[in-house]
């Protein structure tokens, strides 16, 4: 079977409905994440929000943690902060361990 190479694009920015679809979540849940400071959209009102870069990654992680482990929004916010702190420490550790 011949496989055609597909055109693909990088997901750069998502609107609120796009992010909901992307995470298979509803708007209330996404808005709650914004209120907890987990996601930082560009734009003043939810109608023109744009989610970029780390917000997309964090939203997806948050959704997985919520779905798989039943963690609520406050808990997800804390876990994500701690995970980022841990990853930064692991990077520094890796840097000091080399050679």
């Amino acid at each position, binding site marked *: 079977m011949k496989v055609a190479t597909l055109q693909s694009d*990088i997901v750069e920015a998502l609107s609120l409905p796009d992010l909901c679809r992307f995470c298979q979540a509803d708007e209330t849940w996404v808005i709650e994440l914004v209120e907890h400071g987990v996601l930082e959209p560009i734009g003043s009102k939810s109608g023109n929000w744009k989610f970029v870069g780390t917000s997309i990654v964090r939203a997806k992680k948050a959704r997985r943690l919520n779905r798989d482990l039943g963690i609520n929004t406050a808990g997800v916010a804390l876990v994500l902060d701690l995970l980022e702190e841990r990853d930064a420490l692991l990077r520094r550790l890796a*840097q000091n361990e080399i050679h």
Partner: protein
Amino acid sequence: MDFKDYYKTLGVSSDASADEIKKAFRKAARKYHPDINTGADAEAKFKDVNEAYEVLKDPERRAAYDQLGQEPPQAQGRYQPPPGWDSGYEFSSGGAEHDEAFSDFFETLFRRGAGPTRGMGAGTGQGSDVHGRIEITIEDAYRGAERKLSIRSPVVSPNGGVTMQDRTIAVRVPKGIAEGQHIRLAGKGSPGLGGGKAGDLFLEVAFAAHPVYRPEGKNLHMDLPITPWEAALGGHIIMPTPDGKVDLRIPKNARTGQKMRLKGKGLPGTPAGDIIATLKIVNPKVETDEARALFEKMAKEMPFDPRANLGGTKR
């Protein structure tokens, strides 16, 4: 098809209560969750644990599974369920809230002749999005690349049942993509129903571990070894980067741990990332008389005490 010991996976005995099973599952799910556990086999373990729980949490499925016996028949080493093993048990198949397929064992026993799963009801509708992961090298991200990818996803067959289908797709990895970003392949998710639009395929990008570079967003961190005389005298050195060789000026009296920023030499884009090189002074191994003489000359003629600030008494 291999037999799966779901009790062993969850670390419970075969007469464990529903509460014990739930507790064991929650504990294991936290431990092996791929967003928390960065170990290489965490994802597979997490999937196993979920599969085991998917069966054992449901009394009907658990009873049907127990009927199979704890140990697989040894014949030919391949597991075949006895005919009629599930007669008298009714369980709804599917139901897992995960995109990806479970093991062949699970799919054969519990998803056979499955009815439509949630969100895939009959009628017209947009196909669901499919999420996956793709691992690329840092070099791929610099230049862009093409990858062949095998995707296994549930597909609704004409009679309304759900079967797992393997597809091979060629994916163009766009130049300049960073770790954690997503590639979207429009219309390559699950097909739509009754003429509905197909969903999209989203691939989360992960970088394979690299011997030199540690990515952080669009920036790449690295250690840059230099000689003691390059460090002392400064000057230009040629260093390789994924983008080609670059000329880097080392300042006079450079120290180990000093960071040099190579602007725009990180992952491409607007703006491009940087390479952040941490200097590391490396001593040559002294093996010839000439080399030894040079170091002896330094020892004699250079008053330098790197331990001057350690404090304590001198004696």
